[in-house]
């Protein structure tokens, strides 16, 4: 019986290993822009999400990726930068080769000359929530990155004006984080110190 168990366990482990390997192998990019990004920044993972090309980039090269896409791939505009908090996901899209973290910063870029889009995503751990700013390459991301900072508390290094944009300057907390409940109004009593 112990042998059987061991064999079974071993069998199971073997299966799991194979599965892990298959899972962790990123899909080869079938999009030439994504292929160029993967070639230029090793470690980038390509994923096709409902027909749209997505690259998962290491956040250390986030700003360089912006420069690369604008200067060498004709991505004339960055349309949007936003973030996602995956703290309480019931189920999360698992992309092989990507190490999921709590936050994701997402940039949607558009190339007018080539008439195509690409989405870049970087994983951001909550302990060190900072990402290089894209404002050096795409000045229009000024407001967008301020909004992400305001709503998620993710700071953008080298951003010239990283201040709250939608919430009041003295607001405590980051409203779009899943563990923040802006609807909860603390009861204050006379002569109690203010909660904020």
């Amino acid at each position, binding site marked *: 019986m112990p042998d059987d168990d061991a064999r079974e366990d071993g069998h199971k482990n073997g299966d799991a290993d194979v599965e892990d390997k298959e899972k962790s192998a990123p899909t080869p990019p079938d999009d030439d822009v994504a292929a160029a990004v993967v070639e230029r920044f090793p470690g980038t993972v390509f994923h096709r999400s409902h027909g749209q090309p997505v690259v998962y980039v290491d956040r250390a090269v986030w700003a360089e990726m912006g420069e690369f896409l604008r200067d060498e791939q004709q991505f004339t505009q960055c349309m949007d930068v936003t973030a996602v908090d995956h703290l309480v996901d019931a189920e999360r899209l698992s992309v092989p080769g990507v190490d999921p973290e709590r936050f994701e910063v997402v940039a949607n870029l558009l190339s007018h000359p080539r*008439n195509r889009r690409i989405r870049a995503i970087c994983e951001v751990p909550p302990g060190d929530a900072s990402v290089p700013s894209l404002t050096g390459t795409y000045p229009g991301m000024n407001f967008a990155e301020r909004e992400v900072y305001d709503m998620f508390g993710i700071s953008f290094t080298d951003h010239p004006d990283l201040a709250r944009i939608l919430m009041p300057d003295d607001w405590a907390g980051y409203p779009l984080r899943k563990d923040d409940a802006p609807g909860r109004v603390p009861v204050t009593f006379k002569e109690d110190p203010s909660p904020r």
Partner: protein
Amino acid sequence: MSDTRDPSEGTDARTKHVFISDPALTRLTDEGSQELVVTGGPWPEPDEAEGDTMIINMGPQHPSTHGVLRVMLELDAETVVRAKPVIGYLHTGMEKTGEELTYVQGATNVTRMDYASPLANELVFSMAVERLLDIDVPARASWIRMYLVELNRMASHLLFQATNGLDMGALSMIVYGWREREETLRLLETITGLRMNNNFIRPGGVAADLPDGWQDDTIAVCETVEKGVREYDELLTNNPIWRERLQGVGVITTEQALALSASGPILRSTGFPWDLRKAQPVLAYDEVDFDVIYTENGDCFDRYRIRLLEILESVKIVRQCVEKMPPGDYRVQDRKVTPPPRARIDESMEALIHHFKLFTEGFKVPAGETYVAIESPRGEIGCYLVADGTGKPCRLHIRGPSFYNLQSMTPMMEERLIADAVAVISSVDPIMGEVDR
């Protein structure tokens, strides 16, 4: 004609553009490409020894700021030295609210963002949900959507004509613009039940079929609007006071507009013929004939002119919708997504269960993420939607075109007179509900 066609794939250039060649419009943008640098931080107190500039807040209660926009201006006499839009006065946490609402309820929430063109918001949200569900809506639903969005574009640009006239001192325009807009909204009310915040375009199709006699009503509205646009054209376009007030004011170059992520009429006014309806067509935009309007001066006059002529292009599309509206279903026949007809609930237990489940916990969307973008009256409106396999989105983000267009105000205002700042705010046409969300 699938609604969920992937816009990220390049389409071959079918684009036909109309360039407004007007000899009176001389090219004013000769700065060429100038490097744009983002600056910011809290402003220091003006140095009194240095010069006598002062900082003035325009808004958030100023009538020409279209809602609660506040612009910080540093003035040297009457010249604007620096300008900085300050926003957030209308922030109500709609993206957070969106995470608490089911996908069925979601359209009710997003429709209140850009309240001048609510149907564009509903459309982009519904298309994102459909992309995540991998469903295609029927042809008729796509055509009804296109028809409604174009009617809404007319209403939105008519609103601009009215308020722009008001801001510039052409006071009769507020009455004229409102008159035609009201006709358009009345038609939308006949079809959707509400003048604004329609909640009519929903994931899976539209809420109801078009009412009887909609063709005649539409043609009547089209004629009224065309007549109105001709009147505005006669009243304003060649009016020397109007031209003096707007031409060469609030100039922005293509490079600046691109760098600042501006889209819509602002980008097109700089000579850049980019319209998502042509470039990355969704719905049935590749089956109707219309032109992309663009000009090359990048000033307030051009933005006025583009929005005026875009009304006529929308009228053109709406007329083609009346002619070509295909028969068929107005929503997808998938009981997990669309509620059953009312009559079926009395007969079928299954229908009752589906109806109940749909309106209490909604349908579940498999985990995934997507970004869908369409051309709203103000530019590219995008929806970034992340699903986590439950009945509510994990993240709902709307890329409001006004939010980004506001940033282009700064280069338009600087080194100009304070009176021109009013013209600039008006010509950017920001909707604060969408900026602050």
